[in-house]
């Protein structure tokens, strides 16, 4: 069973978490002004990459908090977890955190 590093609680078993899909898909400011297609993209369309993916996770059986993570969908490795109000880490930042050993 994998360990997932909750930004508030530290590493905990994956069974304590639930998956929340792609991160950084904000609720549109004015849904009424969107075309059907634009709205459908918000409701139904999500990326499904092989490799690095920014995702939402919820520590439901722990602190019950939501957070974001950069996870490699091919290896399941969590490269980085960050709070919802943190910006999406850039590629150079991820590389630096790996070099510094601060990646989980």
């Amino acid at each position, binding site marked *: 069973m*994998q360990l997932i590093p909750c930004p508030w609680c530290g590493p905990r078993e994956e069974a304590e978490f639930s998956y929340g899909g792609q991160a950084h898909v904000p609720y549109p400011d*004015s849904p009424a002004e969107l075309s*059907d297609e634009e*709205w459908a993209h918000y*409701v139904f369309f999500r990326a499904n990459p092989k490799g690095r993916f920014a995702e939402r996770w919820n520590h439901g059986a722990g602190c*019950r*908090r939501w957070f974001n993570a950069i996870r490699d969908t091919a290896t399941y490795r969590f490269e980085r977890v960050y709070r919802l109000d943190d910006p999406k880490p850039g590629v150079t930042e991820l590389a630096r955190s790996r070099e510094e050993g601060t990646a989980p």
Partner: protein
Amino acid sequence: MTSPFRTPEGGRIDRATTVEFTFDGETLTGHPGDTLASALLASGRHRVATSVRLGRPRGVAAAWAEDPGGLVQIEEPFPEPMLLATTVELHDGLAAHGLPGQGRLADVPDSARYDAVHHHVDVLVVGAGPAGLAAALTAARAGARVALVDEQSEAGGSLLSGTERLDDAPALQWVAAAVAELAGHPDVLHLQRTTAFGSYDDGFVLALERRTDHLGAAAPKHVSRQRVWRIRARSIVVATGAHERPVVFADNDRPGTMLAGAARTFLHRYGVLPGREAVVFTTNDSAYDAALDLSRAGVRVQAVVDARPEGSPRRGECEHAGLRVLSGAVVTGTRGTERVTHALVAPFADGQVGASTAIGCDLLLVSGGWNPAVHLFSQARGRLRYDEVLGAFLPGEELDGLAVAGSAAGVFDLAGCLADGQRVARAALSALAVPPAADDRLPAAPAPVVPAAPVVLWRVPDTSGAEGTTSFVDLQRDATVADIVRAVGAGLRSLEHVKRYTTIGTAHDQGKTSGVLTSGIVAELLGVPVQDTGTTTFRPPYTPVAFAALAGRDRGRLFDPERVTALHEWHVAAGAVFEDVGQWKRPRYYPQPGEDMAAAVLRECAAARTGVGILDGSTLGKIDVQGPDAAVLLDRLYTNLMSSLKVGSVRYGVMCGVDGMVIDDGTVLRLAEDRFLVLTTTGGAATVLDWMEEWVQTEWPDLRVHCTSVTEQWVTFPVVGPRSRDVVGSLFPDVDVSTEAFPFMTWRDTALEGVPVRLARISFSGELAYEVYVNPWYAVAVWERLLEAGRPHGITPYGTETMHVLRAEKGYPIIGQDTDGTVTPHDLGMAWAVSKKKPDFIGKRSFTRPANADPLRKQLVGLLPVDRQTVLPEGSQIVEFRADGELPPPPVPMLGHVTSSYRSAELARPFALALVKGGRERIGDTVHVPVGGTLVPVEVTGAVLVDPEGARRDG
């Protein structure tokens, strides 16, 4: 009752004690320390079982879990199928018999206990052989928290099977000292009889400890029989040793055919001679130890048959001991029926087999080299590398947090294994920033004799005329070289496909002896390197694990939590029949003597519609939403407006997903300007709270609002029916219960002898009703006072079945029963609950998608069977006839399905709710529902069948 094959001395058995056991009905004896297999061999019995497909005699062919032959069924002390005679420890009273590849589960409940323990360590060492013990000592001496697990009954690994020496003394003396030293470290957990059967992510290993199996009837009842250890290790050292590999030849399955190393184990560990006259067939030097040891112990070794043309430098040693060595020769087959009587030996050069000679023997030892036990490494997704010299797969990469040591990593000499264990443990410590201890001494091992290179030989060409049909690769599946040839001939190239076509490696032993052989033979047939063929995937468990052990304590009542309301004991005493609603136990109905469910429900319904009924509705989900922005949050989540709700009032609301589909419904009580009590469905309580949290945390963190579950802080008793006002009014005289003072959809706080009580005019039945809320501590008292106050009016407790009939008669849907995630509020006929004023709420934008305007969307309607008799089964499909009165040709179009169906006391007939395509346009039509073999005509009606005007809600 003699053991003619027992040596006069030696072995790790307690010769002073004799135990009796029965096998195939025959009473035999052995000693503590024996396995069932060693005791059978001591009695001269090789044949244990019959093969699964061909019915051929099979015997013990190895000494531990890799044995493909000796499958047994245990009958006493408790029936257990499909165990290996080689891994069953002998005890007094054991009763077993051989199995033809399939066993029998016990038909009585297993009364033994099973449990699980979580354990966290710095270093987990799997295997207590030389490499594992060295690794554990190094880690323990450095002060690390260590777990050492080993599947055997005692530590020592391969040292238990030989005569090696360390520090100029028998090696087992060092083993005993090492075990004692580990026991002196407070942070070391050392478990024997414990098999690490699976390695998973992030240092997680599952291990099964067999705690009492070896004690038989003497097992203490308070000790769990087996325990699953859930070990989380920062670093893992896999020192699991190696399995000897056979060579495939014709009739290689006859009892008496055995791996050479296993014979050495039976001799040294159990004091058993596996035969009197042996032929040893080998491709490498390791079998020479078996030949020489057995010879010294009195076995007549008729020949050492070495497939290598130049033989071994150890030939002289053998000849000095009087053993004949035939180099450049192979065993091509065997003779015998129940037991091997002859080995057929032939010269072998450049892949060509010469003429065979029969050599008489009752034991044929085989060694085709050694396969490192890389299972745990491979399960952890470690890549394997094929070693051309060893003819085996080795760990082919470094993994974070998991390293392989000793013969599991291809190191086969004792000094090398000790050093490798220490090296790997030090590397693990270094990664954990733990310095090794100053004194980390290893025992002195004799300088290793460098062995001559082995030859890799998977199979001996079949000269018997059987064309490989008796050359067994997987004995447990009766799968042969001929089967592999057929698979490859059928065009299969991938080893995974060959495995599934031939079933090789799918049996009890999961291919411990057959897996690498298959890789080699397939590669040979395809003419590709073995590295390209690879292995099939190693999956947990390494050895079979009983479901009972995996279940542990989580069975029966502890399988899933049971939630009961504060009134549960009262319901039980009242004779309620319960139903499960999620984890809740809810009274379904309260049968009186002679009543079945239908009769009880009709009586309960009639009481609620004509007098007064009372329900335990405590399981209703309750969420306390507090904060200055509480109303803003609810406005965004509900389809209707909640901010306009007055303090003291109640509003029904519907919640949708962003796709506009209904996810829950319920009523909302405004307790204060900044506080609401949100009621959800029983099943939706957790989901709705999670839904609120998700939006508050991820989208609207600026909202000053907090949500918490108070489901268990309040019990809820709806008092329902035209007489409910009298009951509630008499019990709470401080409350003016008139419609004017206490109108529908309002709530009032009061008290009963100082206990705060909340009353709400909410109705889930259409009748005049008051919901009574109180702290669960006072649940029984208030419930009984309500019953007392209701007695003059014939108050009738009712269960969930009646609740469902009452709500369905009113067309109130149950979200999740009458809806399925594709239903909008409009489909339910609840456009009135969708705000047109609010600029936005979750789901609003989706309502204007073209699909939601489709007139053929499924809509909630009522159905009345025309025969006034049939209760339509829920889930039934709905069809319609063509204009000519015939069914359309198959596939008959389905219009929808029945979602709720009951008998109605009020209507004096059965009725149903259904989702029907364009349903509201069909009101008045007759459609058909297939029930059993007939088509039942039903009339489509509006969803509200009782009191459509809503005249009853104020009594």
